[in-house]
């Protein structure tokens, strides 16, 4: 909108490259502001929601309903002493919190907020997202390695193993979408969904795999083993304090928001509303979906225990990877048959349930004995 205004006003007055630069800068600043304000809102939402899930009030002291709590948090964290522990690799130690912010932010670049409102409307949006997502592990390893702390190092080792493993099902689950829509462009994917129905319905299996794999990449419970508060103190950012820590903290929320935005673009129809409710602006729909997804992430975090690293890896390689491969074949066949949307939905939903159940049953054949454990034994048996 602002960009359109710039173009309208200065067209003919200024050279074209300058206009391009100006629109680029305003867009980038807009996205940056959006991401940061989302991170602040996210802190409030998560603390409030988790408070309510724990039958507490959550923050309610600073400002109305505690709305200023994130700002108070930020002031507190920044006001703390920045400690550089003995024996750290100073350059890498200082660089890690700066670098970690970039991948989270870059994801926003290709997400279309509304029709035509993506900062970078590249043809390979999906590939870009995958590439940038994989980048996120590097600063974590930098932080863990440079901290000169064994807990940090273990957190970093876990982070690498986990991210590399979950990258594969993450990418494979996106292949199905690309097959159906026939394009790598984010906007095309959204347009396809507006026409044919959300990918959440068309490919429920892919949506589930993507959600799980993405939450693993975000290191949220149940897959937050790289932070693992009760195991590794705080994982890779154990040794950070003050402003550097606040960057890790803000990044965590920005990243969750980036992934929520991605999921709402890829699986929930982006800005599209379906056949009805077209009166509300597209961007509102998009943001509403993103916040809803964020709440789902918070919800899982408040409920579930954490998996062990070997179980997490086994889950990626033995469960998600085969299922995502099957999903690709399935989608390829369905695309080839060119069936109507409702049939695709029915077939996919049924197959998803059958596949998950069957595969899980196959994997956990040994675990069936737990149900048979009887704790109160009849008196005669004793």
């Amino acid at each position, binding site marked *: 909108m602002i960009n359109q205004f710039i173009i309208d006003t200065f067209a003919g007055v200024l050279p074209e490259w300058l206009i391009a630069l100006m629109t680029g800068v305003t867009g980038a600043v807009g996205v940056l502001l959006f991401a940061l304000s989302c991170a602040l809102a996210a802190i409030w939402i998560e603390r409030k929601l988790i408070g309510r899930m724990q*039958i507490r009030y959550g923050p309610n002291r600073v400002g109305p309903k505690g709305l200023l709590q994130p700002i108070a948090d930020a002031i507190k964290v920044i006001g703390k002493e920045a400690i550089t522990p003995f024996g750290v690799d100073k350059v890498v130690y200082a660089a890690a919190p700066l670098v970690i912010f970039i991948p989270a932010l870059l994801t926003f670049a290709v997400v279309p907020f509304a029709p035509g409102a993506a900062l970078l409307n590249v043809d390979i949006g999906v590939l870009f997202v995958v590439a940038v997502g994989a980048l996120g592990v590097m600063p974590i390893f930098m932080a863990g390695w440079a901290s000169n702390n064994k807990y940090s190092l*273990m957190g970093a080792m876990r982070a690498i193993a986990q991210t590399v493993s979950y990258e594969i099902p993450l990418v494979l689950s996106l292949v199905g979408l690309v097959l159906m829509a026939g394009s790598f462009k984010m906007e095309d994917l959204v347009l396809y969904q507006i026409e044919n129905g959300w990918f959440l319905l068309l490919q429920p299996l892919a949506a589930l795999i993507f959600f799980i794999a993405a939450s693993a990449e975000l290191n949220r419970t149940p897959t937050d083993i790289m932070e693992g*508060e*009760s195991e*590794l103190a705080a994982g890779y950012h154990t040794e950070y304090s003050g402003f550097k820590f606040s960057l890790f903290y803000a990044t965590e929320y920005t990243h969750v928001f980036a992934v929520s935005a991605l999921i709402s673009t890829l699986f929930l129809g982006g800005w599209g509303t379906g056949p009805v409710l077209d009166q509300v602006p597209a961007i509102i729909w998009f943001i509403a979906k993103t916040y809803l997804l964020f709440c789902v992430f918070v919800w899982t975090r408040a*409920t579930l225990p*954490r998996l*062990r690293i*070997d179980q997490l890896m086994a889950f990626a390689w033995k469960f998600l990877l085969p299922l995502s491969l099957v999903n690709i074949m399935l989608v390829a066949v369905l695309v080839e048959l060119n069936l109507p949307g409702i049939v695709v939905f029915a077939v996919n939903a049924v197959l998803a349930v059958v596949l998950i159940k069957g595969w899980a049953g196959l994997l956990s054949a040994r675990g069936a004995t737990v149900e048979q454990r009887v704790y109160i034994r009849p008196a005669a048996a*004793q």
Partner: protein
Amino acid sequence: MVTANPFLVNMGPQHPSTHGVLRLRLVLDGEKVLNVEPVLGYLHSSKEKLQEEHTYLQTVPITDRMDYLAAMSNNLGVALAIEKLAGIEAPERAQYLRVIMAELQRVASHCFAQAVFLQDLGAWGGPLMYFLREREQVLDIFEMVCGARLTYNYIRPGGVSQDVPPEFLPAVHGFLATFPKKLDEYEGLLTKNEILRARTVGVGVISRELALSAGFSGPMLRGSGVDWDLRKQDPYCVYDRFAFDVPLGHVGDCYDRFMVRFYEIRESLRILHQALEQLPPGEWKTPVPIVIRPPAGEAFQLIESPRGMLGYYLVSDGGAAPWRFHVRAPSFLNLGALNEMLVGSTVADVVAIVGSIDIVMGEVDR
């Protein structure tokens, strides 16, 4: 197979999940534990020696501070030991009140144990707070009875310090009416959870033989399937008048211990129902001098505290203070087989296993 150099990690004394100040020197190969050496004594406060400087009545409030999550059980143990030593008989109402308090304490303590175990597994959200909410109800009842929420100093040699207030019975009945439903809800929330099962089933297995030879007791022992509950085997107070079952585990893994605690809460509620029904009127304390001077001799009393067999060994030389005061602390002995349980597991399992032991460092180090 790539092997790394083993490296040493100090888990604790300052660590989020070592239940206070337990320190484990772990030798790790990547995630695998090669060796573990527990280091104790960070909370040592010389309580046993301190007791030898106090009169018998004054020992009771100090036992509160040992196992601070089950202070009623500690009070009960030391009171029974002193009664044995001095030949005091507590009236029947006091015996019933003691059973009621001990069982309420078991409910509170197990609720806390479950909550902390879940916290250790990484479920840092809801489940923890739900269990703490239920524990809070028991603490309210205790506050009503004896004026304190954590260190009760209620059960004394010769009975209990004072009779329960009139609002006590309705409060306990109210608790018994609402709690089982909540417990069912939480059990549904937790025990069927696949992640929790994945983390606990087959983890930290203690065989029957190891459990017996290491001197385990309480849910640790019963989780391994050994039918040993002092309330059944060697009933003290009036436990022989109640019908209740002893839940037993099958394999001896963390899941068994977790479930045994769940079932023990239910059995405690059963005992509470019966005890409230049979609660006789009458005196709640036999007159006992402020300074008890038992005849020279010794006494040993074991009770079933929420963590296991809690024993008090007293030696009297006829004076006003015990000549020797020794505590058989179940938390301490339950740590006895850490090496066998932890070696070969991963760092995440270490946290789960230590959490399932349910230690209280105040009791371990005394």
